[in-house]
């Protein structure tokens, strides 16, 4: 009886590895419109306009696959040309807690899609919407705004910051609570 129990235990341990995060490699393009009206400036009559939420934001911001794809695209599309691996150069730094247009996924997505004054170009027709969401999720992770279990790991090149899953948690600013 005991070997059977041991075998069952081993089988269940082995099968537990079959559970993994789903990779949605072929998203429904109908959901990829991303045409929500996001203001490009915070100067609004009566204070800041509330930013609308998008159902894509929640599904992308803590997904390890999308975060690492965002990291790959960040390199491929030469975001470092201005943002220097998140350290900032011509463009603002992305690894600190300062967000000119807000730290929400929706705001970062709007920044990449529509551009911002003083240099950030619009990538509206140049990057498919899902890839913009992936980039936005990765940019958020540069400042510790993604769970370390999902954030991308080791960099192969010199970076302005530790690997994203080693970034201090943005909620506690690196201090233990």
């Amino acid at each position, binding site marked *: 009886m005991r070997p059977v129990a041991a075998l069952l235990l081993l089988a269940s341990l082995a099968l537990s590895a079959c559970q993994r995060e789903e*990779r949605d*490699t*072929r*998203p429904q*393009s109908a959901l*990829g419109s991303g045409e929500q009206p996001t203001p490009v400036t915070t100067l609004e009559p009566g204070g800041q306009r509330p930013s609308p939420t998008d159902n894509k934001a929640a599904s992308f911001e803590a997904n390890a696959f999308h975060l690492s794809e965002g990291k*790959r695209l960040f390199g*491929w*599309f030469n975001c470092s040309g201005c943002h220097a691996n998140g350290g900032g150069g011509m463009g603002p730094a992305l690894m600190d807690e300062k967000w000119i247009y807000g730290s929400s996924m929706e705001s970062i997505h709007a920044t990449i899609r529509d551009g911002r004054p003083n240099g950030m170009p619009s990538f509206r*027709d*140049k*990057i*498919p*919407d*899902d*890839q913009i969401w992936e980039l936005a999720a990765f940019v958020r992770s540069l400042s510790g705004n993604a769970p370390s279990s999902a954030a991308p790991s080791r960099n*192969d090149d010199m970076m302005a910051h530790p690997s994203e899953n080693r970034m201090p948690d943005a909620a506690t600013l690196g201090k233990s609570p």
Partner: protein
Amino acid sequence: MKRLASIAFATAIALFLQGCAGWQSALDPKGPAASELAWLIWFFTGLCAVVWVLVMAALAVPLLMRSRQHAEPLALDAGADSRKLRVVMIAVGLTAVILVGLTLLSFFANRTLAAIGSDAALTIRVTGHQWWWEVRYEDATPSRILTTANEIHIPAGEPVRLLLTSTDVIHSFWVPSLSGKLDLIPGRMNVLDIKADKPGVYRGQCAEFCGAQHANMGTFIIAEPRAKFDAWWNDQLEPAAVPTGDEAKAGENLFLKRPCVMCHKIGGTPAGGTVAPDLTHLASRQTLAAGTLTMSRGNLAAWIADPQGVKPGSHMPVVDLSGDELNAIVAYLEGLK
């Protein structure tokens, strides 16, 4: 019944071995390195088979021929002892000779392999990507350096030096008709010399598991006579064909306005992405998506409309295109001969 079974077995073996010929087979060598390796493996296999048969026979003989019982089982028999000692000594001696012999054969085969490219006139840099091959033809004149993808043209009968590296994970370059396999490792340059004896098309395959589409990472070595190869190189250096016709012109315009331009390069146009295959002479290649689809208008459209259906997990995203836009882009790409 027994005869029928053996005939069926022989037929099955013959059918099975048919797969050993053709454009991707280690048992069908078409170059000096591959023939050296093929000869070596056949010799090793044959000699080891002979040794195995001899050992089995030596075990079977005493089992089949029961020796008669001695009247005095514990009595010493000096003659039999020295006979047995002699047999063991001969077996040990033969083993040593065979091992040393095979080691030497392997050593000299390696020397022959290493000598193939000592005077290689052509250097090609092959970079592995998930899941395609970047092929860069080096030349002392910078304007003659050529970058293509997935198809490697070489002059037949001449040694060619391949510099192998990778940008993401470890891949392995293997064209069994021409050479053994060698890894492509990020941050490291491996050197492989190949030579094709005769003109022909030889298929290669990534031989190191490198991710979801590892099996769809094929390549073609196209060995041509020197004159044809030079003409091919000069053709490839030309900028892309200017589109003729309204549809193709609209396609070029769309290509430059839509996400295609972020990753792909087309010589002679503002498209200058380097992270995906160079499309300057796309339609002159035999296959699409690293040997996955044959080159045709229908396959081009299928690949652009839904790359994730053809190669799930590939880095080519689904781009939102209307039917007319897709047709225009395909018409443009089809003209890039």
